[in-house]
């Protein structure tokens, strides 16, 4: 007995040591499912090069996808969409909403070794967010100063109340910090660091070859211990969508963010086990398809005509047949992904009803003339995506059926913005409205009157409504979150009643990523986030 037991024990011991030896030789095999693996290069599809890479100067996903790995924001959003501190550890607002104090993280250094302090935050806020950053200059319009009593404290002082919730929801996009010591002298726009960013983030900038690639490597001194996992991130500049899909299939790319491929390729790759195609991780990048009415035009000044146009278009049919799983029926300017502000669908809606559309047009005094045409309009589609192009053709055909002849005028990006937002040379325009976590950041400007001519994605339709203006202004400085939410519900109801802009389709950007990626798509703005916890399985 004894000897046999000994035999078993010895055999077990031998087997165990063999297993240990195997694990030493191949340490990741046994734990591949659980333990994050260090190392690896993550190749990212970069569709549209921007003119610079510093997210404190330009709010756009094209900049965050690179700059957001190198530089950091004060606050980001966690998996539940709630603000979570990054460079800021905590925050506090006075009851009047005019003073907001941020306590900053200790022991953070810039990639060049200098310490990160409140001076950097104050400099960035006053000189970049307030003066240069798009949307930032509107958000921080009433920011008067940022006090820095000590290196870990930044006190934002406002002339008018700034709702803490609004600021915290805006800062993930509009709160990236740049190093004061690199920017304090010379022209900020011309600073060489704009193309070779220095930040506090998990990855350090290495190289930018225009038209080819951008490389960043792991920051060994990153403040989050044990992060990041990846050795490098390489962004490959590929402007052609079909070529990008081919490179994903050939294994040269791991990730294509923000609906960077054609709708048909995304649907095709969704069936391929090697890839995950999903809208997850993009909830904070919701967008709606719009139909913008130039109310300077006599026919469109009549709300009956605007409602008739909405009733004449079969949106569910369009979504089902052209957009598939990537879109759903929209209910207004605040998308359903906005858990804090979505007022529900019990506001005026415009279901497909051709007879009602015709009746409304008759009522407005536009009877069909010769050949059944009531009047004709010029429609300008934005060139950002194939869905807009399909949508504009669908509008044309749908409105043709109720007697409104549509002429589609196509432009490239610059041309579209110039004609719609500067020259107002349109009757109808269609594009995307991007929702940025709080309606006050980039949504209410679509409805507020008095927008300066030439400012893109603002009310350039000539819409002027005192009631809507008042709700917008009240909500922007309302410090009580419950009251703010109620005001935005009023706003959506008014916007859907008067319909200066119709937002009938809700979309979330689609991500195509390799099935080997771990910890991906785990926050609402993941494509823009820092990727400090992303790793690749073997």
């Amino acid at each position, binding site marked *: 007995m004894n000897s046999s037991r000994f035999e078993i024990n010895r055999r077990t011991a031998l087997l165990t040591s063999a297993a240990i030896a195997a694990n030493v030789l191949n340490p990741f095999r046994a734990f591949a499912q659980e333990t994050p693996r260090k190392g690896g*290069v993550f190749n990212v599809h970069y569709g*549209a*090069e*921007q*003119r*610079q890479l510093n997210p404190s100067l*330009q*709010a*756009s*996903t*094209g900049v965050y996808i690179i700059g957001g790995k190198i530089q950091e924001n004060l606050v980001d959003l966690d998996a539940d969409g709630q603000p979570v501190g990054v460079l800021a550890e905590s925050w506090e607002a006075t009851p009047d909403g005019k003073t907001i104090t941020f306590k900053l993280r200790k022991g953070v250094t810039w990639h060049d070794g200098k310490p990160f302090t409140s001076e950097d935050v104050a400099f960035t806020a006053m000189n970049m967010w307030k003066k*240069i950053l*798009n*949307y930032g*200059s*509107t958000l921080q319009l009433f920011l008067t100063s940022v006090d820095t009593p000590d290196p870990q404290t930044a006190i934002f002082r406002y002339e008018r109340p700034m709702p803490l919730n609004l600021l915290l929801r805006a800062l993930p996009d509009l709160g990236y910090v740049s190093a004061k010591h690199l920017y304090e002298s010379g022209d900020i*726009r*011309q600073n060489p660091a*704009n*193309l070779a960013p220095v930040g506090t983030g998990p990855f350090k900038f290495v190289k930018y*070859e*225009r*038209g*080819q*690639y951008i*490389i960043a490597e792991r920051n060994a001194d990153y403040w989050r211990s044990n992060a990041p996992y990846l050795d490098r991130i*390489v962004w*490959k*500049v*590929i*402007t*052609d969508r*079909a*070529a990008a899909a*081919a*490179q994903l*299939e*050939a294994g*040269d790319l791991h990730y294509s963010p923000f609906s960077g491929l054609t709708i048909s390729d995304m649907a095709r790759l969704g069936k391929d086990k090697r890839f995950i195609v999903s809208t997850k991780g993009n909830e904070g990048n919701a967008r709606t398809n719009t139909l913008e009415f130039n109310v300077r035009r006599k026919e469109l000044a009549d709300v009956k005509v605007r409602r008739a146009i909405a009733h004449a278009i079969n949106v569910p049919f369009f979504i089902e047949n052209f957009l598939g799983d990537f879109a759903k029926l929209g209910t207004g300017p605040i998308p359903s992904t906005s858990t804090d502000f979505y007022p529900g669908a019990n506001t005026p809606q415009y279901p497909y009803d051709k007879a009602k559309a015709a009746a409304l047009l008759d009522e407005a005094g536009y009877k069909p003339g010769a050949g059944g045409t009531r009047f004709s309009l010029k429609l300008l589609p934005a060139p950002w995506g194939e869905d807009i192009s399909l949508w504009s053709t669908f509008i044309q055909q749908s409105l043709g059926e109720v007697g409104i002849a549509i002429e589609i005028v196509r*432009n*490239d*990006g*610059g*041309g*579209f*913005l*110039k*004609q719609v937002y*500067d*020259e107002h040379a349109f009757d109808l325009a269609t594009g995307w409205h*991007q929702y940025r976590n709080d309606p006050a950041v*980039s949504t209410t400007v679509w409805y507020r009157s008095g927008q*300066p*001519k*030439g*400012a*893109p*994605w*603002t009310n350039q339709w000539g819409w002027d409504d005192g009631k809507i203006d008042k709700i917008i202004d009240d909500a922007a400085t309302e410090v009580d979150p419950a009251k703010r939410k109620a005001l935005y519900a009023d706003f959506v109801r008014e916007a859907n009643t008067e319909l200066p802009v119709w937002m009938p389709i809700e979309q979330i950007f689609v991500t195509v990523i390799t099935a080997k990626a771990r910890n991906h798509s785990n926050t609402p703005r993941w494509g823009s986030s820092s990727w400090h916890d992303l790793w690749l399985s073997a």
Partner: protein
Amino acid sequence: MRILSLAGRRLAASIPTLFLILIGVFLLLQFAPGDTVDAMMAQMGGGDAATARELRRFYGLDLSIPMQLANYLWRLVRLDLGFSAIYGKPVASVILERLPPTLLLMASSLSFAFFFGLVFGVIAARGVNRWPDTLISTFGLIFYATPSFWFGLMAIVVFSIYLQWLPAGGFEDIGAVRTGIWRVLDIASHLVLPSLTLGLIFLAIYLRIMRASMLEVLNLDYVRTARAKGLDETRIITRHVLRNALLPMVTLIGLQAGTMLGGSVIVETVFSLPGLGRLAYESVVQRDLNTLLGIVFVSALLVILVNFITDLLYARLDPRITAES
């Protein structure tokens, strides 16, 4: 030496043309709605009017159009191509970075097209109306009729995705830092598919031209004389026929160097090559006038240079040309 002075005169004559082209492009681009700041706003996804005004002043877009043109021409006279609004650096250095891929692509696809066009053209002409001719002509027609982006994508599907022989895009492998001969081989492997894609259409043209001019020359009296005096057929083809039949091909190369820059936009886009063609396309979309004019300037210089070389080649092939001048 006479051919050099002839070519030199041509070079001098092309300078006013160059200026006319530049002024023309400048004015044409003014007709496109929107300027570089509008394009920038489109990229950013929004901004306010004050920022836009500030940027316009920064890029000198608040000046009147004649003032902008005058500024540009004055800079050009001093050989200053200006500053690129998209790239944030001098246009000259942007173009210099983008020139090598385009030159390599042009040279490799032109020589591929020229060589195989010549060989297949000769084979087709020698076997006129028999099966080699029919086969070659059919393929030529297919190559000519197929759009190059489709060819490129199919080549990627077959050689990069299924067979995994060649890279799907880019100019060189960024993952591994290579030097010397390995870097050359790496770049060459990246250029195979794009050169073939761009070259196939030109090959089809060269093939047709070569076949036709071979057939024409083969029927001339001096060829009959050569045959009558008993020279062997290979010698007749290489020494007597080919040399004369090549003249139209050489003319064509000079003409097509310009066309190729245009055709390379699609190939560079499909294969993500950072070349001049794509740069030109992007500068139009982003309304980056300085860069676009710089590219037009450099391309015009390229075409003039290629034509200059063509002239020299021409004289070498046909001594009568120098004699006439």
